[in-house]
């Protein structure tokens, strides 16, 4: 128990006839950042709502910081912070008023609530917002205040539900920096995201979720290895020659992205594949803009695992 912050065993949650959680299992080690990656509707938000005691699971065992989320909801609430998908703030009040409100509701008492609000405003660079109502904040500022509000009592476990959805690149960078600084302090973070890059950047381990279940789990490197090692990318000058190139090149399992005039395939021997491709293209007189060897992206891992081939069309 001491080194496990989150345990989920066979969690189920059904809405009408839709299974939002369908026997989901998850274990998160204390002090780590765990990414939960999945498309819209995969069950990520339902999972966070169950973990943060907002929603009762229909079945299964769910423990956070050593306490059962149903039977010991209060004990769990003492130990968690939640950053939901939508800003959970009082929009009419100012930043300091919000933080003092939440501090009082955490029973810090008036004086400590005021001091803590001051500390957090400083830490998240929000001291100069003055009396401005949260309603008038920019997206990034609102997110930072929201994050500050979820850290009032330095929680053991912090849930971040798509923390950067809807933010511009600068806002995203700000939130990422804040999350990184937390982990040094020993907080366990569970982060849901649709952005593969975000999981890759922040998470120690990643669970890929689809249709309410975990379909793969591991480090970013392990997940990448799962789709079979290296790949070769060939970008042609003319999209019309993609078909001819697929037929001609000494590659198997080729996927074609016509919009980007790109074909991509797994390779076993890197150098042989590279020279083979270059030679074949030259002989056939097909012009290439770029030929490159690379590791698979998490995107491809994800599409491979979920069997969603809307974006990567398998060539014959």
């Amino acid at each position, binding site marked *: 128990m001491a080194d496990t912050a989150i345990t989920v065993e066979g969690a189920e949650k059904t809405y009408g006839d839709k299974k939002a959680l369908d026997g989901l299992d998850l274990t998160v080690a204390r002090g780590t950042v765990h990414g939960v990656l999945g498309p819209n509707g995969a069950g990520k938000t339902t999972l966070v709502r169950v973990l*943060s005691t907002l929603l009762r699971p229909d079945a299964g065992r769910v423990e956070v910081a050593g306490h059962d989320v149903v039977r010991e909801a209060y004990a769990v609430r003492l130990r968690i912070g*939640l950053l*939901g998908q*939508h800003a*959970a703030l009082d929009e009419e009040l100012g930043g300091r008023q919000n933080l003092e*409100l*939440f501090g009082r509701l955490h029973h810090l008492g008036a004086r400590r609530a005021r001091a803590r609000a001051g500390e957090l405003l400083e830490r998240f660079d929000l001291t100069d917002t003055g009396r401005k109502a949260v309603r008038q904040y920019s997206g990034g500022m609102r997110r930072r205040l929201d994050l500050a509000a*979820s850290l009032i009592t330095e929680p053991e476990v912090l849930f971040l539900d798509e923390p950067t959805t809807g933010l511009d690149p600068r806002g995203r960078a700000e939130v990422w920096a804040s999350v990184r600084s937390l982990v040094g302090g020993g907080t366990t973070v569970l982060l849901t995201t649709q952005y593969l890059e975000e999981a890759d950047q922040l998470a120690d381990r990643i669970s890929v979720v689809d249709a309410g279940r975990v379909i793969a789990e591991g480090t970013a490197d392990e997940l990448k290895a799962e789709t079979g090692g290296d790949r070769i990318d060939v970008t042609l000058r003319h999209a019309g020659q993609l078909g001819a190139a697929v037929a001609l090149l000494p590659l198997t399992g080729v996927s074609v992205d016509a919009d980007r005039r790109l074909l991509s395939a797994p390779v076993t021997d890197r150098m042989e594949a590279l020279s083979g491709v270059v030679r074949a293209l030259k002989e056939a007189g097909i012009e290439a803009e770029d030929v490159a060897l690379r590791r698979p992206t998490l995107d491809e891992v994800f599409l491979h695992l979920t069997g969603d081939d809307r974006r990567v069309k398998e060539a014959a």
Partner: protein
Amino acid sequence: MTAYALTDSWTMTRRELARWGRQPVQLVVNLIFPVMLLLMFGYLVGGGRGVSGEYRDYLIPGMLALTMAFGLEGTMLAVTQDLNKGVIDRFRSMPMANGAVLVGRSAADMLQSALALVVLIGVGAALGWRPGGGPTALLGAMGLLLLFRFAMLWIGIHLALVAGRPEMVQAVQILVWPVGFLSNALATPGSMPGWLGTAVEWNPMSHTATAVRDLLGVPGTESGHTWAAIIWPLALLAVFFPLAVRRFARLSR
């Protein structure tokens, strides 16, 4: 958890008061709206069908009751906004007494309604209204009005928790008008077609308005409605308070 019920309720009440401080104009508009209605019906529309004495004396208690009934939509709107903003999720994920969210709402709304009554009575006095029965009767009348408001408050909370969407608040805002006017606030039931008059006499708000008129010595008022003005709100509370509390607890379903 229950040890903090009072502290948390007070904190949540203070939250609402802080919102008034941020938006004083909103509060003033809320307080002026019933005054505007009173002036409109008293001096522009010129109603008072079936009223024997001075219409002003009949109308002001009616407007007091109507203001309490209209409070329902304000409560529903505020709860709906909280539900849709996600801030209620933060409250519910915190180690606080969860009922404090509703208690804070109730306390702030009751305080605002009491203020609205004082303003309306003050304007009435400025118009020359002199309620009879002395301060005790006036306090008793305010007690009956606030009891009725308390019932409206929990209906408002329940509707917000059931409907939960801003469009539904609009629907209720429109419906409150005919239901509010389907009472003896503005005209006597005797002046209406038979079936309508009967419906009006059944409206719980009519009992409150009649009891208030009786307490304040408005001439020609039927007496004996005080019990109905106490029992109706209590009956409504007995239904809607547990329903709302249950709905709130079921947010986790």
